[in-house]
Each structure stands twice: as structure tokens, then as C-alpha cells.
């Protein structure tokens, strides 16, 4: 069927407010009597809190309150932040995040108390007047050392720093290694920094003393998670906390949990009976917003004489930080994400999750898959080097052939169900990317450049990312009495163009334009349940819910019109906001149908329709679905300075059917730029005592317009068989293979020196070091 809107690169409906400065972000919320908060944060990575004295701060004019543990605890049902403890029954109790530490702070930047004042300026003045008597304790910093039995403990009461150890395995890997012709080892140091949306976190909490209910504005990715967390902390039901999410200035994983600050600001509003606002500044984002951080990988790969993979085994040590804020999502994804689009018959990865005195580590865009991809692609480059094979040929040899799709992978998903790649053509994807990047003629370019003293390299990475995770997402399509169409969803818009995408799907079925559909995200009072934005899931889940809900509304409108107009349903069509008899001007506007269905006098309704012209659908995907892609990068390395310049960046991505190819391409661009940051720039540093040494954008480098190249993107659209629209996710697809592809290109450029790169990010300084070391070794 030819679509009018689905699949079309429509311009966004969100843009006007954002371009004219009239959008409303969290710091733009105004309420009568609104007070502003600042936090007293621990300067120590690990310390006992012996005594607090708020009196000098309270004496400052304009200060309304300073609250610490004892004050806040009076209105909270627990010391702990409600968090997903799935599978965590064998974890030490000390690992779960606290609202405010009672007597022991476990990372530098941890909130100890909140100051509420007339303005943020005064609140910050007062923060410096709060006196806290700390007794510093030894800190766990490097996760490798922290794993040792005699290492300083991140929490005094913990049995040790190893939160848990687990293995992801299938087949008989050790036998496969014994039988294999070749074995190659790779040891990797991987690091991903923070989320760093340009808007930080933020919250405005207000408490209605008469009703005992909260209204909370929050810059969050997951409004229902926020609602659920706060209602639990205050002993309320779903009706007791309403979360409203204004425009969100990016998130990328950094706004996907209930943070201590959320609980504390809400408690302060409750204690004061006055609304309180806190907006994170960048330094606070460095100190106290989640990061993905450090991992150390020891891997072996076994192959036959032609480089066909026989097995992979190895170990990961993962820096979890001081608290387990979102289960084992990152580390588990690392352990299952390695094989991706390749055939790997035997497999075992052992993971040690280790606490350190740093802020909790949870997924940033990509969620462990970029690290897994980096590991796999680094191993493949090592195999190619060892067996003197072309890297593309080696990969082609190991990719799952198209004729084996759908492919049941021996890996189990996070839920323990079989991993099934339902669609895609991985060899074609790589072949197309190589052709697009003129891979065949690269050597000529390299030789010409070398004649000018320049070092060029080319890198390849194939990726696979789990997307579209359920268990459901909600959508309600409603035609109001005015005839206006509103679509409500638990999916969360935070810049992706979710409003436009969902409006396109809705309009497709209702005979209107997308601009006639108002999409409402981020309000728990109108959408009771939802999961929100993470894991490249929303278009897959909410999109299919919206598709079915709009179809149901259409059917209902036609049924009612057929009844009223006394014509057969098949003679009716929906167009221009009315249901009309084909080929005539007899019509019934949607507004009249909506009125009839909401109880207008004088209309009779067919017996078998429910009231209201609306439908609610919570599409439950039968399984996750996967995005795949291939990135080919051509880069130049300045061997004197270590500077890397990306010359070409070719992407072939397959996220199934695209609702809006323009916005899909934007997701790939942004995601890939994030991965380039992880390859070359972004480093969240701590010293050996776990003190952060990177706290601003001069020390932490985000990629800018001069480092990010022009992307050449092609989409394949192998439709998923697991949902009616054929969608596979896209939000993280660009991020996953970017660091692997970029660093493969850099290593390739330095091939003549014998440089091997086993870390990300890699700085110019480090590259020069590696070049010098390699020169000395030869």
C-alpha cells in the first residue's frame, strides 16, 4: 500500500518553538513562590561524616532552609532510592543508591545536604557556609586494583568491592580453543565518559498540602520511572505524584534514573510547602551525573587457517562506581554484545563488576554495545594481521550469511530468551559500505599520500544493536469534541523528533495531516503507564502502538458514521477531518462523531461501540529486534602531533522500515558523532584517590564541527518481522561501531610502524607515545 506520510522525510513539527526561543525547558518553568536549590556535595571520594553545622548558612539573608539526612528522612519512606534490583538478590546491600548518606559518603560530588534560597546565587553562597566535619577514608579508584581482596573498600560495610561476577557462555569454548589452528590475544582498556546533553538535569517540585499530592516537572527520559520512584519514596499511589516533562535538551542515558537530587528536591518542597527548583550546572554533571567509564578486557579468539572464528573467550572488569543505579545493564550488554553479526560457535565471557568511589556507572548512548563492538572488531583486526588477510575479506568470511536469516544465535538475551536476528543482510551491508568508501582503490590513495609524507588508514566495523525492547509502550489516540486529534504516549521526546514521527503514523490512518495531530509525551496524569526513552526502543514500541490505536479510531469513526448516515461501512472514507461517502458530498465531520461518542443528545450509537472516539493500545513486541550497520572510515594521522583527521565516513545502516528517513539520518549522524568522541576525545579522569580531575568542557573534549566529518549515509530497509510496521530501532545504531571503525583506521594508518591500538579513547599524546614505542621496538 502506498503511504501518504509513513516513510516520508517530512520536516519536523517541533522546530518552530525551538527556533524562536519560545520552547520551555526545565529552567524556564515559573511558579509563584518558586525557590531555588543548590547542593552541598562531598569534596571527598570516601569519608565519614562526623558532624554537620547548617547554622552559618541558615543565617544568610535569603536562605529558606538547609536540609540534611535527618530532616529529609522525616518525609521519606526509605533511605534508599527505589531502583531496579532485578537479579540483584545476591548483591551486597551497600551497593544500592541512597538518597543522602547518613554517615559515610562514597564519591566526590555526592549530595550531603540541600540549600533552598530566594535565588541560586544565594543558595550557592550558603553552600560555602555549611560546615561538615569529614574524616577521609581510603578510596577505591582503579577497578582492577579495587577487585583485590586487600583493596580499600568503596563502602566500609561491604564484604568487598566485587559486586557480582557472572559468565555469559554457550558451546564448549575450551575444546574449541584446543582444536583451533590459531589463537590471538587482545587486551583492551576501554573508557566511555558521560552523557553530556547540552542541557543538564533539572527538577521543579511542588507540593499541595491540601491534597497531599506532588506535581513535579522533570527533565527526564523516563517520566513513569520518575513517578514510580517518587511515589514509593513518599508512600503515595500513582495519583499522588504527577510528572510533567517540558522540552528536554537531550539526555543520552544521563536522565534515565531517579537521582538523589530528584528525591531531595521533592522532599524539600514537601518540607517547605513551597515549590523548589534545581537545575544542574556542568560541573555537577561531571561530578554527579552517571557515566559509563572504565573497563579492562582480556580476550582470546580462536580461528581456523582461513580466519573463520572457532570461539571467543575472555574476561571483563567493569567499574560500577559507588552505587548500582541501573542493575547490570552495561556490563551484561558488554558480555552478550561481542559476536554481533558474526558467526561465533563457542563463547564464554566472565565479568567482574567492581565498585569504586566514583559516581554510579549506567548506560550512555549505546549501553555497553560500543565496548563490545570495539572488542570484537579489534580482535578481527588482530586476526587479519596475524593471518595476513584483508580485513574486509576476513569479516565477510565470518558474517552471518543472508540465507541463514532469520538466524537463531546461540546467545541468550538479557531476559534469557533465544536471540533471534529476524531480518537483515549483513554481507550486503558491508559490501555496500566498502563500495561507497572506494575500499578497493584505497591502497592507491594511501600510496599517493605516503609519497607526500602523509599517513592514511582505512577502518571497518560491522555492528549489531538490540533495539525495540518492551515489554510494551503506550499510545492513546483521541479525537476531541472539537475534532482535534491528540495522541498521548509513554514514549518520551527528548530531541529525536518523536512528536513528528508519531504524528506521521497517526495521520496516515485518520485522513488528516501530521500537523493536525498533537502528540503529548511526558505527562503521567494523561498517560498512566509507559517506559520512556532509552535503548533505541520508542519508534518500534510506541510507533506500533500508535499505528494500531489510530487504526482502531478510524474503524470506530467509520462504524459510527455508517450507522448515522445509514450507509455501508465500505462506502465510507476518512479525509480532511471527516468521514464521507465515497463520490458524494455526504459527510460526517470527526467532531460530530466525537460528540456523538461522548454523549451528545440526538445521536444514536451503534450497539457494539464503546464511548469516546479514542483508542488505547499497548503494543507488546514479541521479542527485541536488532539494528545492524557497517561503518567505513578513512583517516589521516599526523605522526608528528598525533592528530587524527577523518577524511571520509561512510555508513550503511539497516534499521528496518524508516518512518521518517530525514530524522533517521539525524539519529545516525548524532550517534556516530558521539562514537567519534569516544574514539578520540572524551575522557572522564580520576586520580588514584578517585578524585575527579576532569570537571569542565576545557578538560573534557566533546567533538565539534571541525572534528566531525561529513557522513555519507545509506539506509537498507530490511523490515522486521516482529512488528506490523517492520521497524527496528536506530537511536544508538550510529554510536555502536564508530570507535571501532575510527580506531581501526588510525591503526591502519600507522601499520608501517607496527602500532597496535588497544584502547579508547586515544589522545594525540598517546598516539605519539605508541609511535615512538613502536619505532624503538623495531
Amino acid at each position, binding site marked *: 500500500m502506498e503511504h501518504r506520510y509513513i516513510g516520508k522525510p517530512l*520536516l*519536523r513539527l*517541533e*522546530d*518552530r*518553538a*525551538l*527556533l*524562536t*526561543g*519560545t*520552547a*520551555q*525547558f526545565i*529552567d*524556564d518553568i515559573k511558579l509563584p513562590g518558586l525557590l531555588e536549590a543548590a547542593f552541598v556535595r562531598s569534596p571527598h571520594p570516601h569519608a565519614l561524616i562526623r558532624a554537620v553545622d547548617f547554622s552559618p548558612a541558615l543565617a544568610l539573608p535569603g536562605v529558606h532552609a538547609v536540609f540534611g539526612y535527618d530532616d529529609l528522612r522525616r518525609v521519606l519512606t526509605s533511605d534508599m532510592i527505589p531502583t531496579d534490583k532485578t537479579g540483584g538478590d545476591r548483591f551486597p546491600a551497600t551497593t544500592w543508591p541512597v538518597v543522602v548518606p547518613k554517615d559515610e559518603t562514597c564519591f566526590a560530588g555526592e549530595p550531603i545536604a540541600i540549600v533552598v534560597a530566594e535565588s541560586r*546565587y544565594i543558595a550557592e*553562597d550558603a553552600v560555602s557556609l555549611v560546615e561538615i566535619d569529614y574524616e577521609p577514608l581510603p578510596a577505591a579508584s582503579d577497578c582492577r586494583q579495587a577487585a583485590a581482596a586487600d583493596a580499600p573498600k568503596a563502602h566500609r560495610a561491604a564484604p568487598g568491592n566485587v559486586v557480582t561476577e557472572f559468565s555469559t557462555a554457550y558451546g564448549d569454548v575450551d575444546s574449541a580453543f584446543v582444536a583451533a589452528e590459531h589463537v590471538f590475544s587482545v587486551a583492551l582498556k576501554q573508557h566511555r565518559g558521560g552523557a*553530556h*546533553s*547540552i*542541557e*543538564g538535569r533539572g527538577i521543579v517540585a511542588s507540593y499541595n498540602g491540601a491534597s497531599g499530592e506532588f506535581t513535579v516537572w522533570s527533565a527526564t527520559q523516563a517520566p513513569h520511572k520518575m513517578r514510580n520512584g517518587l511515589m514509593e519514596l513518599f508512600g503515595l499511589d500513582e495519583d499522588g505524584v504527577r510528572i510533567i516533562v517540558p*522540552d*528536554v*535538551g*537531550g539526555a*543520552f542515558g544521563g536522565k534515565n534514573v531517579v537521582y538523589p537530587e530528584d528525591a531531595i528536591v521533592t522532599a524539600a518542597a514537601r518540607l517547605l510547602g513551597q515549590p523548589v527548583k534545581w537545575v544542574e*550546572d*556542568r560541573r555537577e554533571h561531571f561530578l554527579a551525573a552517571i557515566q559509563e567509564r572504565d573497563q579492562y578486557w582480556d580476550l582470546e579468539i580462536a580461528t581456523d587457517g582461513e580466519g573463520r572464528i572457532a570461539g571467543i573467550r575472555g574476561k571483563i572488569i567493569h567499574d560500577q562506581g559507588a552505587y548500582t543505579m541501573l542493575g547490570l545493564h552495561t556490563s551484561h550488554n558488554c558480555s552478550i554484545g561481542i559476536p554481533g553479526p558474526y558467526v561465533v560457535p563457542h563463547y564464554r565471557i566472565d565479568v567482574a563488576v567492581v565498585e569504586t568511589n566514583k559516581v554510579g556507572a549506567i548506560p550512555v548512548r549505546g549501553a555497553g554495545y560500543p565496548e563490545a563492538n570495539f572488542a570484537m572488531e579489534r580482535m578481527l583486526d588482530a586476526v587479519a594481521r596475524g593471518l595476513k588477510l584483508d580485513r574486509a575479506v576476513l569479516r565477510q568470511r565470518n558474517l552471518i550469511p543472508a540465507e541463514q536469516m532469520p538466524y537463531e544465535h546461540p546467545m541468550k538475551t538479557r531476559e534469557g530468551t533465544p536471540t533471534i536476528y529476524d531480518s537483515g543482510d549483513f554481507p550486503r551491508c558491508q559490501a555496500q559500505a566498502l563500495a561507497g568508501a572506494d575500499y578497493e582503490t584505497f591502497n592507491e590513495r594511501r600510496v599517493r599520500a605516503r609519497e607526500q609524507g602523509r599517513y592514511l588508514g582505512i577502518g571497518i566495523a560491522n555492528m549489531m544493536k538490540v533495539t525495540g525492547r518492551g515489554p510494551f509502550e503506550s499510545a492513546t489516540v483521541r479525537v476531541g469534541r472539537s475534532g482535534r486529534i491528540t495522541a498521548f504516549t509513554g514514549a518520551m521526546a*527528548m*530531541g*529525536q*523528533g518523536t512528536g513528528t514521527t508519531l504524528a506521521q503514523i497517526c495521520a496516515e490512518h485518520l485522513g488528516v495531516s501530521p500537523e493536525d495531530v498533537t502528540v503529548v509525551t511526558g505527562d503521567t496524569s494523561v498517560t498512566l503507564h509507559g517506559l520512556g526513552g532509552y535503548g533505541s526502543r520508542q519508534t518500534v514500541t510506541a510507533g506500533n502502538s500508535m499505528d494500531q490505536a489510530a487504526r482502531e479510531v478510524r474503524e470506530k469513526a467509520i462504524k459510527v458514521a455508517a450507522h448515522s448516515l445509514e450507509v455501508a461501512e465500505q462506502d465510507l472514507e476518512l479525509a480532511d477531518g471527516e468521514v464521507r461517502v465515497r463520490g458524494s458530498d455526504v459527510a460526517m465531520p470527526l467532531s460530530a462523531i466525537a460528540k456523538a461518542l461522548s454523549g451528545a443528545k440526538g445521536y444514536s450509537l451503534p450497539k457494539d461501540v464503546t464511548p469516546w472516539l479514542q483508542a488505547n493500545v499497548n503494543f507488546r513486541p514479541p521479542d527485541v529486534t536488532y539494528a545492524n550497520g557497517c561503518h567505513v572510515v578513512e583517516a589521516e594521522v599526523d605522526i608528528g602531533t598525533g592528530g587524527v583527521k577523518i577524511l571520509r565516513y561512510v555508513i550503511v545502516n539497516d534499521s528496518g522500515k524508516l518512518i521518517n528517513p*530525514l*530524522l533517521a*539520518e*539525524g539519529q545516525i*549522524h*548524532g*550517534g*556516530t*558523532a*558521539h562514537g567519534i568522541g569516544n574514539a578520540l576525545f572524551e575522557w572522564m579522569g580520576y586520580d588514584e584517590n578517585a578524585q575527579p580531575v576532569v570537571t*569542565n*568542557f*576545557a578538560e573534557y573534549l*566533546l567533538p*565539534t*564541527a*571541525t572534528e*566531525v566529518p*561529513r*557522513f555519507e549515509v545509506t539506509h537498507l530497509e530490511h523490515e522486521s518481522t516482529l512488528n506490523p510496521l517492520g521497524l527496528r530501532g536506530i537511536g544508538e545504531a*550510529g554510536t555502536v561501531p564508530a570507535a571501532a571503525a575510527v580506531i581501526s583506521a588510525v591503526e591502519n594508518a600507522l601499520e608501517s610502524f607496527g602500532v597496535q591500538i588497544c584502547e579508547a579513547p586515544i589522545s594525540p599524546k598517546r598516539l605519539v607515545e605508541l609511535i615512538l614505542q613502536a619505532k624503538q621496538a623495531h
Partner: protein
Amino acid sequence: MTDRRRIALTVNGLQRDGEVEGRLLLADFLRHHLGLTGTHLGCEHGVCGACTVLVDGQATRSCLMLAVQANGRSITTVEGLAPDGEASHPLQAAFHERHGLQCGFCTPGFLMTLVEFLEENPEPDEAAVREALSGNLCRCTGYQGIVDAALQASASLRETSGQ
């Protein structure tokens, strides 16, 4: 801290005045005293460029300038780009048409940076645009839509001024 001064300045063509603390940032004055919340703060240390406004026509970080320093100056913010309040400035139109924004938080800073740049460089190439934008951070777009929008806007501005 109680040091307060009267200031008078022009903002988006209108005469505005206020009594402010000496330490008040220009960004906070615009946002919270004048209600012009289109100017955003992304880092408050002068790197991200989200808070960029025009001060006497020059792109300036309003997080690195005090409100009192703006006394007697003329400020243009994103709200002043198009007189009708619609997104009708060629840059705004181009950002929309070339998908030059996603979350939109950094966008006002990019727009104001480009206003000055395109006035001084009416016919830039891509490399010059990228260089001009290298002081503004965007985490969503990977910059390509922004660069394309800037190039498109420069063409339409040339067309307009040529007529």
C-alpha cells in the same frame, strides 16, 4: 553582594532597564529578569556557546559577561531574530529545512553565532562554516544539518541582499 546598580540597555530593539547585583550574569538577567528564556546555559564556563547573544552585533557568551557590563549596549537574542516571532529569518528557515536541530537546546547559540559570521562572511565554504561553529557544542546532530543550514542560509541571505 548587596551591591546593586541600575542598568539601561537595548534588547531586541526595545529599551530595557533594571536594578541588578553586580555579579548577575547577563544570561541570567536576560532569562530571569526579562523573561527571554530562549538564551540557554549549557556550561556556564564559556565553552559550549549555547548562551551566545549579539552584543552590539558581536557574538558574545552571555555566561561570561555581567549584566552591568551590558549597560548602554544593544543586545540581540534569539527572540529578536525574526520580528514577527515566527521562524522566518533565513537562518531559522534553513535550520528547519535542513534538520539542523534535534533537542534544540544549543540552537539559539548556533543561530546567533551564525548571524554575525554570515554578516562578515557572506559566501563561506563548508570548512569556513565548520571553523566558525567550532566554538559551539551540539550533542544531538553531529553538526551536518547545522553546517548545511548555514550554507543554505548564506545563499538565501545573498539572494535577499542582491535584490
